[in-house]
């Protein structure tokens, strides 16, 4: 029901979410830029008069200067300043700047202040990046109208030192992406939880951000799929969610089809979504519900249900033809006999796309093997990751999960090792091992529950109780 309730949301967003794609096109990006300092940032332009606090041995000193050049790549700010009564041009390493404040400047600028931590006030807000020129179908306009990011510095910074715009959203130096490596088993290391966390992080920069799910997963739990569907649908209300596929098999294929757009890596594979249990397919009510609910959502996402059906069961056929004039591809759930028809999946096959046929059939929007290749496909001038939050969160969880999974198996086997110290030591050792398993369950529940289920955890707790009693009895008898 929860799933069906979310359908309306998805449907209403399907059209508007991509509209954010070109949001936040800075009008004056060439002159205004955000500069990362040792702590915090400064927003300004060449020509600004600034006061710079720099490290000087163990102390610090303040320099009054005019900005000549900003090279954020090399981390160097070139300024003109007076020294010993003479004007001189000097480079200053950005990471040596403790604080920087605009005190006046070029007519077009202004520059918000910044200092090490968070300057609460200061110079006038810069005439900063704004939305695309009025009159165009500007996504930024949509975002602004909806109370979204304006890109105009408010002169405020948040606790992490990011410049904030008039709406209180962080200002990114340039348009970029939020990347999430979505790797491993679905419901294990590839989860809805990380997508949700990253969406919340992206919210700090305002609506219309691009979230790239780097999908590399052999599939996983059906139960997690329903969580993912909800999470992506909600995320798409605010942001543009893109699947970038290396391996999206089974549940990961279904996940990809929830996204606004799908891109492939050259070696990408996506499909094979039949529901299974052990070495058997699952039929009947669970499969019917799976096909009905997810098929409907995929269809509302603008993808033919027939594509999904061909990934689930082997019997459904999927072909496509291209309009001889426009070249526009059309999928068919039966053989049409039309000239140039390509059979993607016949009566015996289960469908898995590769980069070429996904692109040719219009299932994917492009193929890219690096961020630099993907950027133009997303409508970006260059590949820029606004925040590394997604990478950090995913990597940390994947590491924890792998560690847990490996140790869980080892600890289970350790239970059977005969101990030298007799029955009491044997039980004490088993207690220690079971306690360790419960500790893992606290640190990484998806891992332990994935291995033994919630009931398995309960059984460990029960077993632990019994062993403690046994040990206590043995010790009492011995004393």
């Amino acid at each position, binding site marked *: 029901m929860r799933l069906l309730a979310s359908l309306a949301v998805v449907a209403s967003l399907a059209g508007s979410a991509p509209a954010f794609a070109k949001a936040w096109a800075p009008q004056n990006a060439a002159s205004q830029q955000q500069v990362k300092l040792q702590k915090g940032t400064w927003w300004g332009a060449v020509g600004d008069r600034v006061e710079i606090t720099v490290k000087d041995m163990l102390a610090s000193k303040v320099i009054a200067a005019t900005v000549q050049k900003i090279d954020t790549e090399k981390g160097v700010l070139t300024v003109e300043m007076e020294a010993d009564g003479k004007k001189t041009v000097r480079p200053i390493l950005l990471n040596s700047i403790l604080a920087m404040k605009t005190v006046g400047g070029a007519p077009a600028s202004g520059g918000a202040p910044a200092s090490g931590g968070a300057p609460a006030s200061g110079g006038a807000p810069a005439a900063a990046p704004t939305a695309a020129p009025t009159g165009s179908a500007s996504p930024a306009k949509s975002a602004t109208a909806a109370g979204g990011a304006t890109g105009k510095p408010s002169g405020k910074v948040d606790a992490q030192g990011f410049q904030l715009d008039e709406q209180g959203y962080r200002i990114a130096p340039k348009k970029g992406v939020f990347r999430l490596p979505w790797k491993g088993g679905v419901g294990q290391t590839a989860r809805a939880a990380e997508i949700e966390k990253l969406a919340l992080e992206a919210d700090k920069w305002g609506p219309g951000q691009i979230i790239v799910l780097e999908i590399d997963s052999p599939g*996983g739990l059906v139960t997690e799929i329903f969580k993912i569907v909800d999470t992506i649908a909600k995320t798409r209300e605010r942001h543009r969610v893109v699947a970038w596929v290396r*391996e999206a098999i089974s549940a990961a294929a279904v996940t990809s089809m929830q996204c606004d757009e799908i891109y492939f*890596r050259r070696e990408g*594979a996506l499909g094979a979504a*039949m529901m299974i*249990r052990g*070495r058997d397919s699952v039929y009947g009510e669970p499969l019917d519900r799976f096909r009905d609910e997810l098929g409907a959502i995929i269809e509302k996402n603008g993808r033919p249900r027939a594509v999904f059906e061909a990934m689930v069961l082997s019997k459904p056929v999927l072909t496509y033809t291209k309009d001889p004039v426009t070249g526009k591809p059309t999928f068919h759930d039966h053989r049409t006999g039309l000239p140039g028809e390509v059979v993607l999946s016949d009566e*015996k096959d289960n*469908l898995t796309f*590769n980069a070429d046929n996904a692109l040719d059939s219009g299932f994917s929007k492009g193929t890219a093997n690096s961020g630099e290749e993907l950027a133009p496909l997303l409508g970006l001038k260059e590949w820029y990751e606004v925040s590394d939050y997604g990478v950090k969160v995913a990597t940390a969880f994947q590491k924890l999960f792998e560690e847990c999974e490996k140790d869980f198996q080892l600890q289970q086997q350790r239970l059977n090792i005969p101990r030298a110290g007799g029955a009491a030591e044997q039980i004490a050792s088993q207690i220690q091992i079971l306690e360790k398993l419960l500790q893992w369950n606290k640190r990484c529940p998806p891992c332990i529950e994935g291995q033994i289920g919630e009931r398995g955890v309960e059984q460990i707790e029960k077993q632990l109780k019994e062993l403690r009693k046994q040990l206590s009895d043995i010790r009492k008898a011995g004393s």
Partner: protein
Amino acid sequence: MNPLLLVAAVTLAAVPFVQDPAPAAPEQAPSTEPAPADGSAPAAAPADGNAAPAAKAPPPFTLGRTAAKPGKSPYATDTLLDHPPRVYVIPMEGYMGVDIHPVVYERVLRDLKEQKPDLVVFRLSSSDGRGSEKYMEAVNEAQKEDKIDPRRLASGITDYRDLADKLHGELDDYPTVMYVQDSRGISCVYALAWPYMFMAPTARISGLDVVAELGGGNDADIKAKMFSAWTGIAKGILGLGGRPQELCDALVRPDRKLSADIDGRNTKWRADTAGSWYVIDTTDEAAARFSSKLAEDTGLADGVAEDMSDLMSLLGYPEYTTVDSGEKIFRDSNAAWRRRYRESKKWMEEFQEPWETPQELGKRKQILEKMQQAFKQSPQFAKMWEWTRGLTEDQLKLLIEEIQEQIRSFQKQKQGSGGRSGGGGGGRGPAGPMGPGR
């Protein structure tokens, strides 16, 4: 209580691997696999008796038949070098996933970037064979040591994909060419993962249908799913070489046919036997296979080269110099772990000797600790033990702990003759890993 799964890349346990008792040099294995067609054009006539297309003389291909290929062309006509090229050779020899392993290529790539060559040549020689029962019977008969089940090798396909992707990512700025000395089994994914490919006269590209054997399941839909997932992943790797779908399908799927039409410098692959120039695969029993000649004739390979200098000639470089540090890194690295591996087999034989005295337990523990250290030092060493005998780092840990307990047990018995019972321990030693052919 299995949870409902939407997972395709099944665990290895799902694949009925043959624990072959005997591993050995990976170079050559006896084969009962029929040789690929020798390439007389058109190749094999349809087995089912359908009329084969009439033979036509192959079109006269010329050098640089590379108009529509992705990647940076290695041909002299494209590189336009004003000096003889410095050629960096990257060997890919031995077992996939063991000798051909990411740790070696990390070092090779670092070296390559320092050397700044003009041209990169991958030299592939990896004949793992097919996963048929006949193949394994032949292996057993030949009593080869250290033979790894081809399906076990194939199961590392996602690792091979990631390595191919990494090599592409790091080297796509260089003109690169694949030179196949021989490729049977899962290594074919590398033979075809680079767009510019040459073959040695005796080279084959065959047996990639081993991927299709990775699937499993009890009903038609799960089988179709697994089959689709594994073959989809394999075809993805071939996609790195810009190979078209019809060709990829025929190479990994036994049930697909393959023929080819030739149009100018382009080959149009067909998923049937109606191609007017070449009919490559007419059967549903095995995937398409290529001899060097057939590969050259059909344009799958850019040409047939006797050796490196012949290859360079064909690329248009009468003069060149090779940078052989990559070869050295590869050989040294693999020689080191293989040497250690040979030694370790003796250690483990010793480990499995029946022991008489408690002191010998300490020696057994030392052997396992040496093994543990070797496992940590070389992932290739570890992989070889795992894939040939099923021994893992975790099992070593457990065995060591078990022996420690036995030693403690003896010590307790010795100390407390009048005290409390020392509990278990003593008697037989811990179960050892699967021994070599015992």
